[in-house]
Structures are given as structure tokens and as C-alpha cells.
């Protein structure tokens, strides 16, 4: 949370709740998306990602919560919100009986663009999204990647300031996925705000400025990808020493370290931040220890994802344990070792 510069929120939601009958889908989530950023809502299937997008894009209602989108209240001014957003759904929302060009022209007409301006924008989008050759072919003949590109292009005809991308790369082959990522980066460079949902950590890591981890209808963690990784149990600094003497000396000054006599290493729990590294090195300096080699092990978002979402399912009855414990990063490892030894 180093963003000292005050930002303008494009989406601000507090206490958003939604149930389908008895089933709680969203258990009161808060979101704050800054203008011109990519916000990723990351979570497994059934976490409530699509429901969140459906609510924020005015498609369905919610049971509780306050939401402002592009300075308009979602409940009282849905039409003003609609005018500010573009939506690309998980399943392509294109007209299958029309061709690509007609689909885009339909959007231009519905945005009441003047004829020439509409045609110019349609041609431009066809070009930009590489649909020119297939422009006059029925959409049913399009490949998955092409449909998704058309779908996204349709959401852009109205020049929205906020774009919802609900799992934009789900089901795409790696090449199309990369192409979609490039397109998203271009959009952000153009100043658009993007609200992205994904179940791919790599995607959130690559594209997002901020990530919220959604599990079982709750935001279990939120921050920049780097922040989330640092908060992850299992992050540590591995120190290697030239000989036993140095190792002994270091081990005496660092009590929570794990020692490996054979490899001459010490693993010290750490969030990998500069501050904690400096503290660690200062401590080693004071103990006059010579460090041969130092490696920082930061978990990737995959670890964060599995730890946080997994933990939640295991301890569903006890909400206090949803926050990952950072005190003993080695618990899992050592218990594994113990089990193999016995």
C-alpha cells in the first residue's frame, strides 16, 4: 500500500452480499479499483467471480452493499453505469447469426455513433483485433480465440472507461491466451481501467496491479502480486556458509533458522522484503559471520492461492484461521520429513 498519490476509484464496493436461495455466493466483499489500473479477482471455480462481475455490470441485483462505478450509484443510476462500462463475458456474447462486422456495427448503432464514425470504429477494431479476413463470415465459423477477440472488440465500440473481463482466456490455447494478454496490456496503456477475473495465477501475476483472492464468496487476501507473495508462508532466505564454524556462529545468533549441516546452509524465515533482508544482514554482521551465498525464496502466486484457498476449505468452521500463519514456515516441511522417517 505504497500508493501515496490519491487515486480516483472507478469501482468502490462495500459489503457486497449475494445469496441464491440458501446458498451464500458473496459474503460481503469490499473492492476498490483505481482508475487506469488492472484489478484481478482471482479464485477457483464457484468462488463468486462471475457473480461479482454480473452484479457490477448491472446484470443482476445484490442483497446488500453499496457500489459506486465511475461516480454513479449502481442501484439508482444503472444506465449511467452502463454507459461507462464494456463487458466481455466468460462465454462469448456475440450474435451467432450475424457476421463479425455486423456484430460490431450493431454495437456502433446501439451506442448511437454517427454513421461515418461508427463505420470508422468498426473498421479500426476489425483491424486491431485481426478479424479483417473473417469480417464477412458468420460468427459460428470462428475459432474460440477469434470469437473471444470479437467479443472483446464489441465491448470496446462504445469507448468504455471501465472494462469487465470475465475469465477472458479460459478455454483458449496458449497462443491465443498470449494474444489476449497483449491486447489487455494495450488497453491499459490507453488509459482504460480493467476489472479482470481469472483462475490463472500467471495471468493475474502478469497483468494485474492489484489482486484480490476470492474464495467461497470472501476476499481472503488483497494486494499487489508482490505483496501477496511476501505474505505467503514458506518464504525464506537461504544462507550458505564456507565452513562449520561460520554456520555454528550464524545458527547461534538466529534462533528460528533451520540448519542443514551437510549442505552448510541455514534457512531463515523471511518475507523477502528489503527491510527484513537488511535486518538479517545487520544481525549477521554483528555476529561477524561471513556469508558465502544468499538466496531469496519467494513463493509464487500459486503457493499463495493454494495455501489461502485450501486453508479456507479445511477450516471452514473457524474463520479466524483464514489468515495464513507466518510464524512457522517449516511446519509442513518438517512434518513431511518426520512421516517419511518413521
Amino acid at each position, binding site marked *: 500500500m505504497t500508493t501515496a498519490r490519491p487515486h480516483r476509484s472507478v469501482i468502490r464496493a462495500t459489503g457486497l452480499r449475494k445469496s441464491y436461495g440458501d446458498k451464500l455466493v458473496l459474503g460481503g466483499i469490499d473492492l476498490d479499483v483505481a482508475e487506469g489500473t488492472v484489478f484481478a479477482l482471482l479464485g477457483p471455480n464457484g468462488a463468486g467471480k462471475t457473480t461479482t462481475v454480473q452484479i457490477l455490470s448491472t*446484470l443482476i*441485483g445484490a442483497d446488500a452493499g453499496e457500489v459506486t462505478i465511475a461516480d454513479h450509484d449502481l442501484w439508482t443510476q444503472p444506465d*449511467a453505469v*452502463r454507459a461507462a462500462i464494456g*463487458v466481455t463475458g466468460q462465454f462469448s*456474447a456475440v450474435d*451467432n447469426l450475424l457476421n463479425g462486422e455486423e456484430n460490431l456495427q*450493431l454495437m456502433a*448503432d*446501439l451506442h448511437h455513433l454517427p454513421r461515418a464514425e461508427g463505420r470508422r470504429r468498426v473498421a479500426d477494431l476489425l483491424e486491431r483485433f485481426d478479424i479483417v479476413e473473417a469480417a464477412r463470415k458468420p460468427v459460428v465459423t470462428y475459432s474460440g480465440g477469434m470469437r473471444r477477440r470479437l467479443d472483446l472488440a464489441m465491448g470496446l465500440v462504445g469507448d468504455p472507461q471501465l472494462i469487465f473481463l470475465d475469465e477472458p482466456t479460459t478455454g483458449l490455447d496458449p497462443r491465443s491466451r498470449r494474444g489476449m494478454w497483449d491486447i489487455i496490456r494495450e488497453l491499459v496503456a490507453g488509459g482504460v481501467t480493467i476489472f479482470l477475473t481469472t483462475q490463472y495465477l500467471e495471468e493475474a501475476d502478469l497483468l494485474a496491479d492489484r489482486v484480490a483472492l476470492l474464495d467461497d464468496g470472501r476476499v481472503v487476501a488483497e494486494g499487489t502480486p508482490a505483496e501477496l507473495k511476501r505474505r505467503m508462508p514458506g518464504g525464506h532466505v537461504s544462507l550458505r556458509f564456507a565452513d562449520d564454524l561460520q554456520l555454528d556462529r550464524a545458527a547461534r545468533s538466529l534462533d528460528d533458522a533451520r540448519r542443514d549441516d551437510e549442505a552448510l546452509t541455514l534457512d531463515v524465515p523471511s518475507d523477502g522484503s528489503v527491510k527484513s533482508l537488511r535486518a538479517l544482514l545487520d544481525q549477521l554482521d554483528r555476529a561477524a559471520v561471513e556469508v558465502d551465498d544468499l538466496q531469496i525464496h519467494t513463493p509464487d502466486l500459486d503457493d499463495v492461492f493454494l495455501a489461502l484457498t485450501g486453508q479456507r476449505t479445511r477450516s471452514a468452521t473457524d474463520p479466524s484461521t483464514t489468515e495464513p500463519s507466518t510464524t512457522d514456515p517449516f511446519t509442513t516441511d518438517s512434518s513431511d520429513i518426520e512421516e517419511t522417517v518413521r
Partner: protein
Amino acid sequence: MSTLTYALADSRTMLRRNLKHMVRYPTLILFVIGIPVVLLLLFVYVFGGALGAGLGPTMSGGRTEYLNYLVPGILVLTVAGGGQGTSISVAMDMSENIIARFKTMSIRRDAVLIGHVVGTALQTMIGMAVVLVVALLLGFRPDANPAEWVAAAGLLTLITVALTWLCVAAGLWAKSVETASNIPMPLLLLPFLGSGFAPTDQMPTAVRWFAEHQPFTPFTETLRGLLLGTGIGSDGIVSVAWSVGIILFGYFSARSLYDRDPSAA
């Protein structure tokens, strides 16, 4: 542009979309033309002789006489047949994800529905024109003057719009395309349970009571009066009242069904 201009523009855009669908996938128009033409041929050439003889003492009877009697009923039935196509195409459209996109756009809310109504109404009118041409070729001889033709066309348009709104609502209400194709079935039967194919005064009391109080009888009688000069009486007013009532009911049902929160279902 004003709100009204936007509303018209959006509806026109949606109508254009529907017309493109129809031109590209013209299966439904076959419904609209096929059923009435087959029934026309069947009733004229198979049952016509017998039914013509039973039309009553005021008429001379016979096949041509029966054809003249039958055509207004067949035209009204064409509208009902078009209704089935409407429900199917609305239900099919609602199962497409593009509808969700429309709902997240700042456009006139009922433009999608108006597009469907105007599109299928036009389709039904074309169907009726074809049916009328077939009837004329078979020997249908109306004696309407130009004003009566205009009135007949107006009445058929009104009935078409009314039944189309009703069938749009049915298509929205249906959870599946199959259901949507079944709901309007009774509409196809109503002309038979009225004065479309035989005079009501020869029906058993209960059936006759129903026949005389359901909308298709005044529809048929008014049309018959305009085209063939039989008595209209209060049937004209009753037809208009039924139509307006059905339009209001159909429109508001369709609106609320379209607006219903899909997550609340």
C-alpha cells in the same frame, strides 16, 4: 437526441437485427405460410363440399361458398401460426449470451422486444399476403371496397401485434425452446373453436358459449364482414377491445419477464 429518438433508434437497430436473422434463417416463415395454406387446401378440397352444404339455409352451399366463408378464418389462423414462430425465436434469442450484453448496455430496455414484435409482425403480414394470393387463385371472391380493404388490413395488423406481444411474453416465460414452441399451440386451436371454420350456431351449447366469447370469433366475424359484407355489429368494437387488452397484457408481461433478475429465478 431526445430519449424518444434514442428509443426509436434502438428499436430500429434491433428490428434490423431481427430482419437479418429472418432473411438468413427463413425457416419460420415457412411455418407462417405452410400451415394456413395446407389447411386452406384441405378444408376446401377435402371437406369443402360437405361443409359448404352445411353452412345454413341462407347460403347456396358448395365448395366456392365455403372457400369464401373459410378465408377470413384462415387469415386469422395465420396470425396464430406466426405466434408460435415468435415464441420459438424469442426463446432461442434469450438463450444467447448476447442478450446479457444488451442488458449491460445503455440502450432502450424494451428495444430487443420491440425488434422481435415488429420483425415477426412484418413476417406474419407477408405470410398473410401470400395466403391471400393463394386463396384468390383458388377462387376466393371478396366484395370489399378500398376503405374496407384498408380497415381489414388495419384489423389484421392490430390482431397480429396483439398476438405477437402475447407470444413474445410466452417465449420469455418459457424455460426452454421446446416449451416455447408448445405454449402458443392453443392459439392455433382457437380459430377452430370459433367461427373460423363453421358457424357457431350449430355447435353444442357449452362449445357455442365458449366460441362466442373468445376473441377469435369477433376477429373472424369482423374480417368476414369487411371482406364479404356480412354483418359486423358489435364485433368490430369487441375485436379492437380484445386486441388492445391483449397488447397491454402482453407488453407488460413481456417487460417484467425481460426485466426480471435472472439470479432471482
